[in-house]
């Protein structure tokens, strides 16, 4: 066969294939159509972020973390019947206001893909910035931390990020929820930092003491005490969206009447267990800065604790504080 004839034949095949593809593309099970359909359903049911929700669920079906992979690359692909059934089941959960992160059982925190299971608190974007703040601060002061504790580790996002960043760092993570402890452990294993981490099911009390923790674990002091403690004022809890109020652990959110119920004990804990040059880093409510300053004004001297710096989040709200021992 001459080369020209072969090329002509190949052209024919290409044409037939593309025609077939086009014929398929008119069917209802094509990604693009399914996306549109569910966006409309979500909109009708007044589900927040209708389009983004279905895009993320679809990406999950295609085993990718990037929504553009499905909205662009796979948009003309036809879903199999199994895929459709699975997708519909997941979308039913969304109609019941389940957070997308729980539906697809994972979410991203900075570079990490972390497992998410209800009711363990889902890390927020603000907290991603806390990692930069801590690492920048420690590196600019040439301080390489070797020992840290996180109070209320949840999914483990903060501790695992820090352990990844500082390979010589060892961490203790505690959480009052057994589910959270298990999840922290699982995520640590997944990201190969389990050998740097010990997780304990324990709770901090109002006096800043950690119950159920072997005392010898606290003999050595810490370079870092980190926490994203529950800080939502109790009065705001009923105003939370159903995604949060119905599905996330209320104990990871409710910070008491002023939102400081756990923040204050963590400060007391820090004053007892921090190395002389160590720091406490906390995420707080947007209106906490003045209250913390006021409180430290009254009893900071007694605790030998001072606020050294406060940081804003990407929305320019006061979000993080750093405390150190008074020399």
């Amino acid at each position, binding site marked *: 066969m001459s080369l020209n004839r072969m*090329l002509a034949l190949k*052209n024919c095949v*290409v*044409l037939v294939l593309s025609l077939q593809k086009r014929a398929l593309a008119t069917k209802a099970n094509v990604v*693009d159509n399914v996306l549109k359909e569910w966006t409309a359903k979500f909109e009708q049911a007044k589900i*927040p*972020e209708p389009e*983004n*929700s279905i895009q*993320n669920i679809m990406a999950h079906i295609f085993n990718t*973390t*990037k*929504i*553009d*992979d499905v*909205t*662009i*690359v796979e948009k003309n692909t036809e879903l199999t019947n199994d895929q459709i059934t699975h997708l519909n089941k997941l979308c039913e959960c969304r109609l019941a206001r389940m*957070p*997308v*992160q729980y539906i697809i059982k994972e*979410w*991203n*925190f*900075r*570079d990490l893909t972390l497992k998410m299971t209800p009711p363990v*608190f*889902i890390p*927020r*974007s*603000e907290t*991603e*910035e806390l990692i*930069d703040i801590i690492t920048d601060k420690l590196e600019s002061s040439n301080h390489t931390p070797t020992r840290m504790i996180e109070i209320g580790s949840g999914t483990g996002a903060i501790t695992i990020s820090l352990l990844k960043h500082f390979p010589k760092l060892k961490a203790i993570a505690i959480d009052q929820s057994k589910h959270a402890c298990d999840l922290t452990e699982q995520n640590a294993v997944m990201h190969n930092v389990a050998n740097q981490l010990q997780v304990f099911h324990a709770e901090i009390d109002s006096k800043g003491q950690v119950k159920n923790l072997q005392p010898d674990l606290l003999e050595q002091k810490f370079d870092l005490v980190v926490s*994203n403690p*529950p*800080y*939502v004022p109790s009065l*705001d809890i009923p105003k*939370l*969206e159903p*995604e*949060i109020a119905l599905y*996330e652990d209320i104990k990871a*959110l409710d910070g008491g009447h002023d939102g400081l119920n756990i923040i204050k004990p963590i400060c007391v804990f820090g004053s007892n267990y921090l190395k002389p040059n160590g720091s406490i880093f906390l*995420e707080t*409510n*947007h209106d906490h800065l003045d209250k913390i300053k006021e409180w430290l004004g009254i009893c900071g001297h007694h605790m030998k604790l001072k606020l050294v710096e406060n940081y804003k*989040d*990407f*929305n320019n*709200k006061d*979000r993080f504080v750093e405390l150190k021992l008074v020399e």
Partner: protein
Amino acid sequence: MKHLMLSKLEKFSKRLKELDFLLTQKEVHNNIKDYCKKVREHSFLYPIVELYNNYKKINEDIITAKEMLNDLEMRNFALDEINLAKKRIFDIELEIKKLILPKDKNDKRNIFIEIRAGTGGDESALFVNDLLRMYIRFSERNYWKFEIISRSLSEIGGYKEIIARIIGLNVYSKLKFESGVHRVQRVPKTETQGRIHTSACTVAVIPEADEIEDININPADLRIDTYRASGAGGQHINKTDSAVRITHIPTGIVVQCQNDRSQHKNKAFALKILLARIKDSKLREQQSNTAKMRRLLIGSGDRSERIRTYNFPQGRMTDHRINLTLYKLDYIMDGDLNEIINSLLVEYQSDLIENFFSN
């Protein structure tokens, strides 16, 4: 070797002898500036002339070997000799070209590719889709990673704009001639009377910038917008939309990124594109100056220049810069760009060489 090149090399070797002599002269030493200039010229010419001398010697060898061909006993030996010499000459030519051609330090870099709809409305937006597919397929053929970073949809299923990042080996060196206006002629899907329309898309290929090396941005010059701006934020809100938009206030450049589930990563990405764009606008200024100076046909960096036409009814693609028409549009749209890209590269290099020698 081309005649032009040979005559220029002959000039080089004369000039080198001249320089050898001049550099021993006292008067030259007294003028430091002039002296430095001559030393630089010398060190540029020396390796080239060295290769050229080698080239001449091998050529002589070939001539002697050819004489031996008549000798029956020596015939085989002479043939071997000639083949070996030809191969060496080929290598030397390549070496010389490498020394003469200016190097593009961006060649090895990853790129951002931006495809935008231009004249022709919906049809143009649909063609963005086709171009995107073409570049995705081309990247697959080269084992490059293709990441879509940002996109904005048009109403009927095409795209107003797509930004993607291509990661891999020598990406910029292969795609740097893709920047410009790509014109399409076909019967649009939306056309009911079967008329052929002409519309166009703009493609911009931008090499990635190194933050530290290339550009410093003052954080105060950036405005960052997210979908989480209202309300108390933090634990009060749980949103999955992680889109980030960054505006560089002094230049007015806006970049949006939404592809990753982490807002932090979207922000980092947006910043990266922003850096690349700022650096690119500087680079283009530079390029258009040198292109004007050298009268280059390709690589002028002018993105308003119409570089290609994809004509579907005739099944052809024409590159206007080198007047090349290929009648295999289906394959090209499926990412078979090697032929066109190699032709462009060859033309560009010989362009450069000619310019170099005619100056």
